[in-house]
């Protein structure tokens, strides 16, 4: 208790000062340039007492050598160098930054001050060099004669703050890099979505650089607004992610689709501060989906149509007084022809097939050998899918009949198919296809008109919008199709 009385304050030096104060009192100062503590000048004692009372890290560098006297707060900063640092020369105590402290001593002892903010120094405090940042303030301390005798330094380490700021800056840079790397549209809204604060439209939507309340008019269609706003209200109410795919008015005035997502940014109290969102352009995907829907619809129609064709061919093949075995073979063969015709059309993506290709595909597989069949024409003609299909089926019938009864039924007969284009008497373009058999057995017109004949004479003629003649000449069957050439064009 006696230590706290004013009398004892004068008798004991330094007064208090915690752990470091105790060390200073017991330190043998006679081995330092300061000499025994009892001989210290009053100015040195005063500054020492003052710094020991401070909770801020303070160090006093006394004399030309800068003998170090510091407080508890500074001893924490010095790390494992404390307590050896006490009473040492500053250039030796902090050998790794001797140059820096040399400058401090020269400036301070010349009566001037020094100040550094977030000064980076590499210090060895825990066995290895590590960068530290500090706010440093140096002021000269005068002795009794009024001359600078030492330098007092207030040392505030800012390493944590500097690193945190650096992390924040890097995080912001990464965020900026991300937002420029993404092709997404980035936007910000006020907490209640009344105000759009910014939108980077990537050239697709018009940019919003200053906060606006007119964003609905700019980006949304009037009829879509209720649905979008309902989703917004729900997201605000539940403080959860907003997500909606909706139509947008594009910068070029066109109509597009966006998949938009926004997350709420909350404060410490959990209240929404603002919304941050990104939107992906889904216009193209939407168009593909619509296209796919149409394709599926169309495919369904074609399947039904093909079934109806199959039904029709079956009805024609299995009618009247027939040999069932032979009818089954004919039916199977007609199905193959139908299948090949479909290949031809899909190969041409269902937009049309070439006349030469359609004929060759229908008849070449039936020819006994390649030398007994020619297919030639002066220029290729494009056919509509329907016409190509009809022609394929008709040619298939002619080929199977030739194999059974005509030129391909013996060892030497042949079939030559030729087409030509030209002008008729009125100057209109005409197409002529001639199927000519020769070298076959004796020719007899069929006793009964089968599906093949019906298909060619009744069906093909109307399909081609022209005439078809079947002549059973002594040399062989000649089938001639005369039609307008614009088969591919609209009729």
């Amino acid at each position, binding site marked *: 208790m006696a230590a706290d009385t004013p009398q004892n304050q004068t008798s004991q030096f330094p007064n208090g000062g915690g752990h470091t104060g105790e060390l200073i009192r017991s330190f043998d100062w006679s081995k330092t340039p300061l000499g025994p503590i009892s001989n210290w000048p009053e100015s040195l004692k005063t500054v020492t007492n003052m710094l020991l009372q401070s909770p801020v890290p303070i160090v006093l560098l006394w004399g030309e050598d800068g003998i170090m006297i510091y407080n508890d707060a500074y001893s924490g900063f010095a790390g494992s160098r404390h307590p050896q640092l006490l009473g040492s020369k500053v250039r030796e105590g902090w050998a790794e930054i001797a140059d820096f402290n040399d400058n401090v001593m020269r400036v301070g002892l010349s009566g001037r001050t020094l100040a550094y903010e977030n000064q980076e120094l590499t210090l060895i405090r825990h066995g290895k060099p590590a960068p530290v940042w500090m706010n440093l303030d140096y002021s000269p301390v005068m002795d009794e004669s009024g001359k600078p005798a030492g330098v007092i330094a207030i040392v505030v380490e800012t390493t944590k703050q500097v690193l945190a700021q650096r992390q924040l800056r890097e995080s912001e840079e990464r965020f900026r890099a991300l937002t420029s790397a993404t092709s997404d549209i980035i936007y910000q809204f006020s907490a209640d979505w009344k105000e759009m604060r910014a939108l980077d439209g990537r050239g697709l939507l018009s940019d919003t650089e200053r906060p606006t309340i007119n964003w609905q008019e700019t980006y949304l269609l009037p009829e879509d607004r209720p649905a979008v706003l309902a989703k917004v209200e729900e997201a605000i109410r539940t403080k959860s992610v907003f997500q909606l795919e909706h139509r947008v008015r594009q910068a070029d005035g066109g109509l597009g689709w966006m998949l938009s997502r926004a997350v709420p940014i909350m404060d410490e109290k959990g209240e929404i501060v603002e919304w941050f969102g990104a939107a992906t352009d889904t216009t193209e995907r939407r168009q593909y989906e619509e296209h796919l829907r149409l394709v599926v619809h169309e495919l369904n129609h074609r399947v039904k149509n093909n079934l109806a064709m199959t039904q029709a061919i079956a009805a024609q093949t299995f009618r009247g007084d027939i040999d069932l075995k032979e009818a089954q073979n004919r039916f199977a063969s007609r199905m193959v022809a139908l299948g090949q015709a479909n290949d031809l059309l899909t190969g041409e993506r269902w937009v049309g097939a070439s006349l030469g290709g359609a004929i060759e595909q229908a008849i070449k597989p039936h020819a006994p050998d390649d030398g007994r069949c020619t297919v030639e024409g002066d220029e290729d003609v494009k056919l509509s899918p329907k016409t190509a299909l009809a022609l394929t*089926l008709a040619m298939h019938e002619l080929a199977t009949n030739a194999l059974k009864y005509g030129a391909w039924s013996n060892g030497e007969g042949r079939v030559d198919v030729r087409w030509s284009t030209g002008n008729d008497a009125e100057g209109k373009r005409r197409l002529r296809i001639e199927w000519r058999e020769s070298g076959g057995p004796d020719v007899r017109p069929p006793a009964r008109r089968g599906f093949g004949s019906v298909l060619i004479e009744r069906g093909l003629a109307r399909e081609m919008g022209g005439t078809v003649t079947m002549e059973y000449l002594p040399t062989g069957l000649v089938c001639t199709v005369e039609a307008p050439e614009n088969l591919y064009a609209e009729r």
Partner: protein
Amino acid sequence: MPLRILVVEDEMTIALMIEDMLIQLGHEVVELAMRLPRAEELARQAAFDLALLDVNLDGRKSFPVADVLSARGIPFVFATGYGASGLENGYSHCPVVTKPFMMEDLKTVIDSLPLPRA
């Protein structure tokens, strides 16, 4: 009472089958049109009691033919693989047979039409 019928169908084999079905049902096929322009021409000029219309004629829809027939007061039936869903707005109330169909289906839809009968 035999009806005079216009058949509009772009698929050769199906057209032949429909003709056969109608003949077996005791009707007369007065004309067959396989493409839109010919179908429109016949719809305007030919004399018949009823038309059977394929919806897709080599890529073109036959609705203009239906319009001509409506204006003339001639009943018609759509025949399509699209089914009733393939009919555009304004035609969805029209009678339709979905391909493929049976002769009996054709008979049923024809019998349901408001036609002069014996």
